[in-house]
Every structure is written in structure tokens, then in C-alpha cells.
């Protein structure tokens, strides 16, 4: 049975961004009902029992995060919407914001109502100019319709939403980096604890969520917890730490496929299905060599691993970091893995914030090694160094403050371990790359 999209249901409609259009499709009815009939705690409980996990990358249970807020806090409590979507090849939030801003706004309203936030900051990356303008229009409409501001729909609940435009840095997507940036500082991630739920924006309790997660909240409350739990993958009984992967997910398909794009599917679809059924297969009739399963920081997969289901646990089983943003980037059999890795290392070297030594120097070192590889001067020992550096940087071994370094190390160790033969051949042949790396995007 074909899956009927809910998050993207309105994306292709003619009048998808206006309040009228959204209302015609039943928009804000859920919010009005919740505002009348449910308490914030009930909303939180619903989201918690639905098992909604954050769609930003780490997959932290969303309802659980909300319960970390201090009980009975006098306020203000803030919601930060993280639209600093800078993971390469990821564009699911962009589509949500540009095509259906009111759905996101309703999610913001419902979530804010759940944990009594009185201000929401919509942190959108600089590059999403259109998204920013569309969202601003939606917010203005909502204010005019009494859906935002003081005493929403005649209730006692008030919420203000402000848009904050980032200045274009990958690290602003890290939640505490985002908070620092929002406060007007250099986006250096904070040391945790305290976590943002205890001390976030302006030293007040703060929840940071991503628009896709918030959009899911709308549908959990609209269609019910049972509907949400009927989609996706239940927890692995053998893994007590698995919280399950319920609900729909937006998958971005890009790279060497015939029809790149964004699809909404239940969690747990395999990469092969994604490429063949939704991406139109690998381009030019070639075979795939591998793919990036969920944004580049999640690592790399070989073609043989394409049957891995893309739920929150699937990619881990083949040595990837996790589901990430669900952005699959395919590269065909003629792609040089050295070039791929060179480009990835270049990205992280450029985007490391420079706060922690292992990440600042490690990402630079890995890039220098890859640069040397491409000049035909790679050495076998370099592979050991790459692996070691990649293994030892990051929040998981405890050597950095945030997870950027884990993300920088993962594709490197995946590439070296899974495509070692190709690296060795590259070294042995003394081949140098003929293709020029694309220039870094300048804004």
C-alpha cells in the first residue's frame, strides 16, 4: 500500500503558503481544540507516548526533552526553532518552511503551549532568504488572525514569534551554538551541563527543535498517537536502549540519481528502495558505488549496505553514526572516493568553529592529508593516521564540546575502512586526481 504523505500533503498545492489555504485544509483546528480541551502537560504526554524523536540528527526523544524543563519555572521559557539547516545535501526543512509555513507555525504554537513557552525564536540560516520571507509573511498573517500575540484565540495563552537570520555557519545548527549566535555572540557551542532545557537563551530554560519535528507534533495531535505509532519501526526487542522509530520522515535524495528530490515515507525505508523507487535509480545507467546515508556527518555506506533500513538504528548497524537528517547522497561507480573524502574533509575543516583543539587541528590535518592524496603524494601510513584522528576526536570519546568533530571523523573512518582497497590502489598507482575541486560556496 502506498504511503499517503501528511507532512508534505500540502506542499504542491497552489496556495500552500497562505493562512486561508492552510485553514481550508483544516489548519489550526487542532491548535484551537488543544487550546480549549487539553493542558500543556497532556500535549507533552501525547508527544512522549507517540515516541516522536527529534528529526535534527541525533534522534533524541522529543517529549522527553520537553520534560527536562524545570518544573514550575516562573518563566520566561523559550522555544528555538532550528532552521540552520546546514548539513550538506539536506533540504527537508527548507521545503517545509517554504511550502507550508503555517504547518510549522502550528507546530510551534502547539509545542510552545505544551511547555508554556512565551517566546519562540525562528533561527533560519542566511541562505534561506525565500524561506525567511515566506515565514515572516505567515507570522504576520497569524498575528493578524489572533493566532499569535497576546491572549491567543481568547485564551490566556500568549506567544510571540521572532525570526532571527543566521550569518551562515554550520556550527549554528548545534543547539548551544545556535543559542550563542542568537544572543549575538560567536557561535561557540557551550559546555554541557547545563543543558539548554535548564539554561539556554539568555540563561533561561530553552527547548531547541527542528521544524520537521514540530510539524510532526501537529499530526500527532491531529490524528492521534495510535496513528503515529502505526507508522515506522517499533523498538528492537534485543536492544533495550532503542526507543523505536515511529512516524513519517522526510528523505532528501540527491547526488547521482535520475530524479533527486524530497519524499515523505515511513521511517525504516531502505536506501535501495529510496534510490530505485523514489530517486529514479542511479543516473546514466551506472551502478552506485556508495552513498552518504543521512548528511555527510553520518558517514558513508557501500553499495552492499544499501539494504539497511533508514530508521534511527539502521545505519548504526553498518558503522554509520546514525540516521542524521535522512539526506541520502548517492555517488556512482566512477566517483573517486578520494575526491569524495577530500571534499568532505574540506567542508569540516572550513566549518569547525575552532574552539576545541582536537577538532580545530584534527579537521585541518585530515584535510591536509587528503589534499596531499589528491596530489598523488599519499602514503600508506596516512591511512592509519586518518583512522586514528577520526576515531579520537569528538564528543563520544570525550575530547570535544560538541558533536561536530564526531561528524567530521565519521565519514573519514568509514571511507578508510570501507573503501580501503581503493585508497591503497590510489597510493600504489601514484595517481593524482584530475578533477578540480569545486570552489567553496561564497556568500
Amino acid at each position, binding site marked *: 500500500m502506498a504511503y499517503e504523505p501528511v507532512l508534505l500533503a500540502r506542499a504542491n498545492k497552489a496556495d500552500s503558503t497562505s493562512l486561508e489555504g492552510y485553514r481550508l485544509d483544516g489548519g489550526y483546528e487542532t491548535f484551537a481544540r488543544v487550546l480549549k480541551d487539553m493542558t500543556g502537560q497532556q500535549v507533552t504526554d501525547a508527544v512522549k507516548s507517540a515516541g516522536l524523536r527529534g528529526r535534527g540528527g541525533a534522534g533524541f526523544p522529543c517529549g522527553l526533552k520537553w520534560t527536562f524543563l524545570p518544573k514550575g519555572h516562573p518563566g520566561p521559557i523559550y522555544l528555538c526553532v532550528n532552521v540552520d539547516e546546514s548539513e550538506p545535501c539536506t533540504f527537508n526543512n527548507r521545503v517545509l518552511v517554504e511550502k507550508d509555513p503555517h504547518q510549522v507555525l502550528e507546530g510551534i504554537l502547539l509545542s510552545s503551549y505544551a511547555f508554556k513557552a512565551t517566546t519562540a525564536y525562528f533561527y533560519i540560516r542566511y541562505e534561506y532568504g525565500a524561506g525567511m520571507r515566506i515565514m515572516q509573511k505567515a507570522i504576520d498573517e497569524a498575528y493578524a488572525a489572533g493566532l499569535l500575540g497576546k491572549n491567543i484565540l481568547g485564551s490566556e495563552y500568549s506567544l510571540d514569534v521572532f525570526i532571527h537570520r543566521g550569518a551562515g*555557519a554550520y556550527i549554528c545548527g548545534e543547539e548551544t551554538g545556535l543559542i550563542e549566535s542568537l544572543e549575538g555572540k*560567536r557561535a*561557540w557551542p557551550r*559546555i554541557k551541563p547545563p543543558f539548554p532545557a535548564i539554561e539556554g537563551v539568555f540563561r533561561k530554560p530553552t527547548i531547541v527543535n527542528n521544524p520537521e519535528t514540530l510539524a510532526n507534533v501537529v499530526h500527532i495531535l491531529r490524528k492521534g498517537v495510535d496513528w503515529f505509532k502505526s507508522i515506522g519501526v517499533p523498538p528492537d526487542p534485543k536492544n533495550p536502549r532503542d526507543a523505536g522509530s515511529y512516524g513519517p520522515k522526510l528523505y532528501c535524495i540527491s547526488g547521482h540519481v535520475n530524479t533527486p528530490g524530497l519524499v515523505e515515507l515511513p521511517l525504516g525505508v531502505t536506501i535501495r528502495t529510496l534510490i530505485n523507487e523514489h530517486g529514479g535509480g542511479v543516473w546514466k545507467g551506472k551502478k552506485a558505488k556508495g552513498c552518504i546515508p543521512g548528511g555527510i556527518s553520518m558517514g558513508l555506506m557501500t553499495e552492499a549496505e544499501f539494504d539497511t533500513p533508514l530508521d534511527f538504528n539502521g545505519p548504526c548497524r553498518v558503522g554509520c553514526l546514525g540516521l542524521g537528517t535522512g539526506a541520502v547522497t548517492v555517488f556512482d561507480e566512477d566517483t573517486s572516493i578520494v575526491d569524495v573524502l577530500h571534499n568532505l574533509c574540506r567542508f569540516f*575543516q*572550513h*566549518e*569547525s*568553529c*575552532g*574552539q*576545541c*583543539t*582536537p577538532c*580545530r*587541528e*584534527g*579537521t*585541518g*590535518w585530515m584535510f*591536509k*592529508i587528503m*589534499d*596531499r592524496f589528491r596530489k598523488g603524494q599519499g*602514503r600508506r*601510513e*596516512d591511512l592509519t*593516521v586518518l583512522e586514528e584522528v577520526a576515531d*579520537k576526536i569528538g564528543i*563520544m*570519546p*570525550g*575530547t*570535544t*564540546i560538541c558533536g561536530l568533530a564526531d561528524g567530521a571523523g565519521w565519514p573519514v573512518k568509514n571511507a578508510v575502512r570501507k573503501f580501503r582497497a581503493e585508497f591503497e590502489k590510489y597510493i600504489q598507482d601514484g595517481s593524482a586526481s584530475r578533477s578540480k575541486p569545486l570552489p567553496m560556496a561564497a556568500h
Partner: protein
Amino acid sequence: MATVYVNDQPVDIGNEKLNCVQAAEKAGVLIPHYCYHPALSVVASCRMCLVEVGEKKPDGTISMMPKVVPGCQTPVKDGTVIVTRSDKAKDAQERTLESLLLNHPLDCPVCDKAGECTLQDYSFGFGKAESRMHDEKKTPPNKPDLGPNIDLFTDRCIMCSRCVRFTREISGTSELYITHRGDHSEIAVFPGDPLDNKLSTNVVDLCPVGALASKDFLYKQRVWNLKTVDSVCPGCSTGCSIHIDGNKGVIHRLRPRANPKAQGHFMCDEGRLGYHYANSADRLREPSIRGPHGWTPVGYREAVQTAQQGFNEHSLRSITGVWAVLSPFMTVEEAYLLALWIRDFGKEARLVLGPVPREGEDDHYPKDCRGNAAPGVPKFTIRAEKCPNRIGVEAILKHFTGTVIGFDAFLTALGKGHVKSAFLAGGYLPTGRGHWFPAEAVPLLEQVNMLVVQEIFTSALSQKAHVVFPSATWAEKEGTFLNHQGLAQEIHWNSAPPGESRTDGQVYLDLLGRTGLMRAHQLRREIAQVIPSLSQLSTGHLGTEGVLPGEAPPVQSPKRKIPVS
């Protein structure tokens, strides 16, 4: 009572709130660290202090955290277990050092910091012997004009951000920031806004490597040739604890010495850079006597005898005409000895306190964005009173004369011609604010029958004297200074006074006819017995941090500890 286990060794930390680095220090274990500094906020970014931490349960079992944690950011409590040299911790420390050295130029042979560089020390203690990098190092251009006193060797920087935090948290002037991202990060100032504040040179001490260099000290000395003694800055009544670094009789730099009782961790640029007169070739080097045929340099003994004879004669004629002016730059011991000598002639001999230099108002830091002192408790204060020991000299004067008689009394007496013999004690520093003795009163000195002057440089005042003793600077003598809150601190000599000169205390000792050399700790005991208000000097030792009024002094001065921060 809380017990922390550092490498299996139990340490009692009492009720103090400490992090792992501090707790380990208590146990005598060094956890290497760069970005952590006790006076600055914790950023936990250098990742040098990675250790394994666990908890000892009441039943004796120990559960360790699965990953290494930064010691500076991890608080300890009762039962915390810190392991600094396990394989995991060692590995993490080694890797951090390897990372730090990737782009470090290793130009130690021409680096000012070599010898006291923590990157050298930690590499030796915790690092690997070789680098695995086969690529070119980054060589960002140096910034020699970071500030009037500061030079930045950009390539040596390890981005610990201590200097940036200093300008934000202590000076409040916020000149420094980090520009660029990742391994392109650099310390920088905004164009037209150099690192120029009254505390700026502290960033040189804070810098764990040779990136920030003091222009005053740059390329002057290798630090291992320097002799370091503990002393106190004489620049103002804050009485900052300092180190004097000198070599072969020349002072090369002053550095702040951490002392929570005095000033904390820092010192101001004026005090730090205000030592150059001590090295001057123009200093008075030998005593001289003014005879009928002009000035004759004489031996030290002859000068002492002449002064003694002169005072003896004139005190017999008129004891009320005997005056001594004590300067607030003298040590407690010197003031005591001089007062003792003058009072030997008779109870009516006059003792007055010389002028106390003041300049503006107390200058509190941090500043806010408008340059006013920020609200809250100041973290550093440059005091308006520009002398180190007014309180100490006053305590001596009070003992001898009951009240402190000001300098005006001397000038009035001088105007009326009542001053027959006078001893103008030395110590006043040539500060560029004019000579301490009012110029209009200098001609009046003509009528004084016996004028003894101690001076560092020759001046209009010493030209009028009958006997001139070259004065020693504070870096050449030992003694005690009492700062604005009465904290008594020891000062020590780094070099001998130049030429034939003796320390001021030795001159008084010889005038008194006491034999032997001036020994500050013996005199302190004597003073404490004679003057109850200075009982804090009773053991003769004041420790490295000094003794506040009412505090019990240490029985013996502790051995110097090598500071870890």
C-alpha cells in the same frame, strides 16, 4: 569533609568547591591545562586536562565514567576518583599535544617563552617525541602592533583564549577577539583599537606559549639565565606581589605573583614597566661630602662618620632642630632603624612623614563599555596612593611620636629657620611626576647646618646636602611593606646596590653603631616586640602571601612552590 581520590591517593578537600585540576593540585598532581586559569571563566576548550573521572561508592566499588572528561570543567565531590595517568587519559593528553604542535612553529630557539613555556613542559611531560604530520604548517603573519606593549606571534598561538577572556572579564576593555574559524582562527584586534589598557601586559603572563610577547622584554634574555625573587611592587598601595627577574645586577622584567590576599593574579603596566630607573647608569654610585671646595666622593665609612658627627654636634646645640623625614617608600625595618637613630639624640628630635604621592582616584577594573568601573566587586584596583608602605611607616611613626606629623610641619619649621640638622630619607622613586621635595623650599635648605640626603639620582635636593648617600631601590633590599589594608609582605633583593652604595637599612644600622649586616627577619622580630601594633611580624617570617593584621604569622617561610598555572 569531602575526600577525593587522585591517582589512588586520598585528599581531603574540606568544604571547598573545586574542579579536578584544583583537587589534583592539592594532592600534588599536575593535570596539564592551557585554557583553564583560576582567575578566568572556564571554557574547557583546550582539551589538555582530559582525565578519567569516577565515583567511589560507600560500599567501596568504583564506577568510572565511560569517556575522558575535561578536569577544569568537572567539579569534584566526596568520593570522586580522578585518574590522570591511565592509558586512556594519557592517550587523550598525548593526542591533544600532538594536535597543538601540528601548526606550532617550534621556533623555540628564538622564542622568548622558551624555558618557561607550558607547551614545552607538557610536551616533555605528557607528549610524544615525534610528529606524524608531513604537511606544511600554517604560517599566518605576525601582528607586531597588537598594542603599544604587546607583540603577537600569530603562528605560535594555541588558541587557549585566555587573553581574550582577560580583556573581557578582568580589564573589561574587550580589545581582543578571535577572528576566522577552525584552524584559521587568530587572535586579533579591531583596526584602530589596539590592545592598550592599563593592564594589557598581563596577557603575556597568561599566554601559555610565546604568542604574546612583551615588547619591553622581547629578545632581552633567555629566561633560564634570570634570577627570580619574590617581592612587592612599589608603584601603589595595592602592593601587588611580584617576581623580580634579573641577571647580573640588571632587572629585566617584573611579573605578577599570584596572591589572593594582595591583588589576585595580575599587576598593572605602570608597575610592571616602571623599573627601568633601577638599571640606569646615571644612578648615584658612591657617597659624597660637600666641603668648602665642593663635592668629594668619599668612602662609605667616612660618609657615615661625617653624618654621625654632624648630627651629634647639632643635637647638642638644639635637640628640637634635629629633623628626619621618612618616606612612605621605606620598608618598615628602615623606618624603624632611622627613627631609632634620630630618637637616640633625644626625645624632642622630630620625625615626620614625607609627602605621600597621590594621583587621581582609585582605578577599579573591570571597566564597562564606557570606560567606567563596572558594577560589582572590582577584580583589580590601581590605587591613587602611589607609594607602597605609608601604613607601615605610619605605624613606626605613631610608636615614636604618638601621632603622625605631616610634611607640612617640616616645611613650616624650615621656613622659620628652626631646622638645624635634617635627614631626608630616600626611597622616593623617580616617577616622572616631578621631584618629591617642593622646588620652592630647596633654597631654604641653605640654612640647615647638617643636611643628609639619600637619593637614587642626583637632584637639586642632593646639591644642597652636606652628605649624600646613594639610595638603594626596592629591588636591592629586603624588608617589609604594608599595603593599603595592612597586609605585611616581604620584599627581597634581586641585585646589589650599584657601586659603593649600601642599602638604606645598612646605612641606618651603621649610623646606629650596630654591627653586622641588615637582616630583615631579625629586625621584624625586634619590631614586633617593641611595637605591639605590628605584632604580625613576630616570627620574622611572612610567608609568600604575607600576613594581615591580626593573623598569626608562619613560623618559617615555606619553600618556594613551582606554580602550576
